[in-house]
């Protein structure tokens, strides 16, 4: 008969009453292995799940004129002078699908702390309120005021008047700006008159929600500012809303921010304010 003896069977007679050290060692190894496996599994699961909740923190320290307002992910190295300005203005921004502008769930992540915009000092005597400090936040506030005035009723003419009131000589003509083209498309696409007041019962307004600084030259006089807001179209109670963003190059001239001469800024990443896409594009909330 074959002798395929179980070694334990032999061992028990040579070492009465005590399990061999090999057995206990093996038990220890198996238990240890299983314990480590389970522990690893549990830790991995916990880490993954918590990671899913907190989301990936955007990192990327970049030298910038105002680190408080630096927006993530855009890195044309800032310098000064026309070339630096052009590079900064034309640097491409995050490409988002068109569908990103429609309402969607809000993200729990943020692109950074909210930005406080200063109040204008001069609200009369000009179409767009002016008189903002010579900071990035001032440039942002100036752009937001321009948008609020220019986007009223989604009228390209209104936009052109507001734009021209702030534009430096040499800036892109109002009719060629992306915003103007979009407004024309909007009017044409919804069978409205190309310019002028809206049909009765219809209202279109733009409310700012988020801003970001694309970049600033080293001397701090040239900033590409971006603003994102909610465009709400109300036709007899049927409301459609979506996100609408815009970027313009701003230059500090004298005691106010003007729309800079030279190439205009690349298209802003429009998204629904507060959504995951907006956060990943770098939009930050406004506090007044």
């Amino acid at each position: 008969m074959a002798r395929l003896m179980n070694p334990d069977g032999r061992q028990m007679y040579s070492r009465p009453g005590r399990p061999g050290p090999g057995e206990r060692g093996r038990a220890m190894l198996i238990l240890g292995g299983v314990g480590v496996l389970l522990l690893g599994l549990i830790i991995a699961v916990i880490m993954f799940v918590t990671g899913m909740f907190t989301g990936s923190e955007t990192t990327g320290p970049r030298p910038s004129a105002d680190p408080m307002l630096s927006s993530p992910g855009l890195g044309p190295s800032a310098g000064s002078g026309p070339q630096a300005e052009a590079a900064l203005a034309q640097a491409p921004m995050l490409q988002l699908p068109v569908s990103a502008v429609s309402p969607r769930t809000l993200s729990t992540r943020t692109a950074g702390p909210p930005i406080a915009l200063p109040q204008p000092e001069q609200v009369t005597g000009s179409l767009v309120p002016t008189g903002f400090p010579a900071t990035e936040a001032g440039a942002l506030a100036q752009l937001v005021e321009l948008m609020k005035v220019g986007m009223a009723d989604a009228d390209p003419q209104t936009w052109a008047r507001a734009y021209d009131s702030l534009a430096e000589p040499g800036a892109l003509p109002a009719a060629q700006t992306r915003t103007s083209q979009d407004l024309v498309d909007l009017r044409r696409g919804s069978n409205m008159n190309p310019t002028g007041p809206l049909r009765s019962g219809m209202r279109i307004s733009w409310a700012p929600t988020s801003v970001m600084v694309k970049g600033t030259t080293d001397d701090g006089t040239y900033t590409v500012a971006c603003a994102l807001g909610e465009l709400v179209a109300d036709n007899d109670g049927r409301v459609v809303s979506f996100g609408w963003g815009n970027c313009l190059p701003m230059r500090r001239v004298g005691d106010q921010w003007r729309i800079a001469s030279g190439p205009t800024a690349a298209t802003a990443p429009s998204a629904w304010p507060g959504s995951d896409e907006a956060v990943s594009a770098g939009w930050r909330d406004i506090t007044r």
Partner: protein
Amino acid sequence: MSTATGPVGPRVYRGLNLKEGMGWIAGMTPVQAFLVAAACTPALIAMSRNQWSTAFSWGVFAAVLVVLIVVPVHGRPAFRWLADLIMFQTGVLMRWSPWQSRAAAGLAGDRSEPDLPGVLSRLEFPDGPEFHGSRICLIHDTDQGRWGATARLTHSGVGMLSDDECTELARRLGSMLVGLGHREVVDRISLLVRTVPDDGTEYAVWRERHQRADAPTLARQVTTEIDRDVASVSVRTELFVTVSGTEDALRRPAKAAGGGVAGRAYALYRVLEAVADGLRGLGVQSVTWLTSTGVAEAIKTGFNPATAASLQYQHLMRPDPDGSVGLPISQAGPALAPAPAARAYHHDGFSSVSYAVQPPESGTIFGSLGPLLAVRTAGERRTLQIHYEILSQAAAAREVRSQRFRNNVLVDAKAQRGFNTTAVDTRRQTGAREQEAAVAAGHALVRFTVASSLTVPAEWNLEDHAARLENDSSGRFRLLRLELAQDSAFVAAALPVGIGLPRLTRAFDS
């Protein structure tokens, strides 16, 4: 149980393989369902946050985990295997599983103090009062609160009976169980059949006593040769029956009978008579309720078949009618049992493999367990133990109700949504309905488990013999080797102490 409606041939017993505690949440137990839900949670969270790639990877992870939790391999899902492995190795590491008797260590304890390994350590064996001229040994399970007694039976076997007689026997077994169910004291009965390698002791003693001194030498030589050839392959079977009742059922009659161990014994004795009568109806010739010596010997020979010869010799040479000077209960256990291996149990120079016997879906006939006891090699020992628990009428009704509910939840949910129900579902559902109808008509419900084991001397090739046992049962019953629990399984399969059925657990009490 349902019968085949065929006019000829033996009766086929079906519906025996209803698994107890079948999960009622889509076939999962509540624990499994909870774990599966937990495994799927990360994927669902990721989905709700529109992170589809994350959701996909979590989904794959959850699928793997669900397979590990739900799909049984050799009767246990992977997670259950892992838990069992952890417990098993903990026992080895903490030196809980290896065992050495006090006597082997040279510490002779009290004669009446049991000294048994593993699950047997929870048993106590108090002597009851006098019953038919001897003091019966009560088996007290301190863990589950049960009191029982064991009897040795003699039976001529059923191999030579006709189909009609077999059917009659089966019917009588059924009515005996129903009768026990109505008695409300005893609710468990275990039948143990063990083969005993015939060592020829009895014959040798008889020869010694009847030997003639003037016999011719040639005749002696011939007789010796015949003895050597014939006796080496002969096998006997011994039968034991263990009945036990719960502490709860016994408490009040015991109090009326004087309380304490004696009171419980009296309450049990009233039932033993009825059990013995029922057994005689099954063709059992004699029923001997065992004294503590008898129980000790039954356990001892269970662990070590080789001691049967010396014990038998003692009985024949120095008869001990009242069982007061035989083997004490303190020496009933094995002298040595090392830490059990995962797939076998070694004890006192023998090795055992134990199995759970699972009835087939297609049904079985009377006497089909026989091959499990057909010893193939002289010297191996096979055992078979069937544990029955008779549920009371109320418990049975509740059980079949919940069974039907569990089956209907799944089937109805599928049917309402227009999904196909599988044949298995329908079969289970009709089976549950039939059972409920039978219970409503006054039949009793019996939980049962069948365990079988094989013991060979330690130096033999154990796996060879185990494979033969598995072959013998193939096509009739499925043998599930109870890995990582061989020591407890051995107790359930080979020792007449009534341990073997887990307590009835319900997911919910309706």
